[in-house]
């Protein structure tokens, strides 16, 4: 059993779907900092995905600092990002711009999109 779930959707790169599922599991607290992350082989077999893809998932999450590799022990979930709040917020610039572009295209106003963001924000556990 994997400590997170992936609901695969057609058409999107498998690699992006799995990395997103891992980040979401961390955001919801399903995957706690310091907990063990499954090996590439286990990921591949449990999700029925190509081992090369599973490897790419672990490599990119490690490069982003989401996972930490301890030689001889394995891969664990990293503690939340450090650095100033402004530095961390800058990581989301691209995603925020996309959200605003899509919202404008759909004709939503500022208040509506902020409310929608708030509703999603509250679905996840409070910061500890």
């Amino acid at each position, binding site marked *: 059993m994997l400590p997170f779930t992936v609901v695969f*959707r*057609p*058409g*999107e790169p498998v690699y992006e779907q799995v990395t997103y599922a891992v980040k979401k599991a961390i955001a919801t607290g399903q995957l706690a900092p310091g907990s063990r992350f499954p090996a590439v082989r286990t990921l*591949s077999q449990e999700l*029925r995905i*190509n081992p090369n*893809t599973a490897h790419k998932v672990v490599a990119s999450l490690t490069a982003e600092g989401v996972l930490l590799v301890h030689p001889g022990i394995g891969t664990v979930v990293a503690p939340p990002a450090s650095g100033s709040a402004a530095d961390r917020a800058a990581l989301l610039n691209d995603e925020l711009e996309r959200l605003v572009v899509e919202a404008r*295209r759909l004709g939503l106003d500022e208040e509506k999109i902020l409310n929608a963001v708030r509703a999603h924000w509250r679905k996840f556990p409070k910061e500890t």
Partner: protein
Amino acid sequence: MNAIECENLSRSFGRVPAVQELNLEIPAGTFFALLGPNGAGKSTLLKLLLNLLRPTSGKSRVLGRESTSLKAADFRGIGYVADGQDLPEWMTVTQLLGFCRPLYPTWDQGLAVRLQGLFDLPGDRPIGKLSRGMRMKAALLSNLSYRPELMVLDEPFGGLDPLVRDDFIQGLLELPGDDRPRTFVVSSHDIDEVERLADDVGFLAGGRLLVHEPADALRGRFRTVEIVGNQALTVPSPIPPGWAEIKQPAPNVLQLVCTSFDASLGASEIQARFPGSGVAVQAMTLGEIFLVLARAHRGSDGKGAL
């Protein structure tokens, strides 16, 4: 290193060309899905690679050796499972494994036992008395157990129920994971079962390789698009590059398949052509993309590629 290389590979049966001037390189460690409609030449190509058929012209190399000079010893590193292939009907699965084991220096008995359990294969019944799914699993088991460097599967999923398919895929995924790269070449006329496994996709039609690219790139550039306007819409002329299967179910609705979608631009390029209209863009499965490719080929006298 390439596990497979083809150079102008051709094979005809009488006057009928089955594989035409085919060039292909598959790097070692790749899961390659060979797609194409029935009669596209998939089985012929796989047989040419493994020297089960001789080419009319051109050549191919497998694991560094020319196909036409493959020897028995080379086949210790190659697995081949084909739909409806011959198996010794009178042997039980246990007898088959006992027969194969001494033939392969790389035989992994632990893997054989694990796979037999995973596949839920009875060891004591003659293979001739097993169901189709069981027979395919027996064939796969006897091939995977010597950990081949190259695994060639010709329409392995045809007629298998979803549970057996899943067993089958799980079995395939038992193979990688040690130091050596494992290459898979899997032909299918229905891609859905290998959607999450394929690194690269080749699309064969009329004996020609029309498309060969990473599965993610293919998924990235195909989208269904629906444009809904407040008034009647007209199809741009000339038709924009990359547009296919354009339909107009109502005067104010256009549906099409975009084959050159650029995710960084999103729908903006299409939106710009139809100001004030709603544009809905949807990703497609490899199976749906495959159908678009097949229809485009059928409608183009064998020359079309998207």
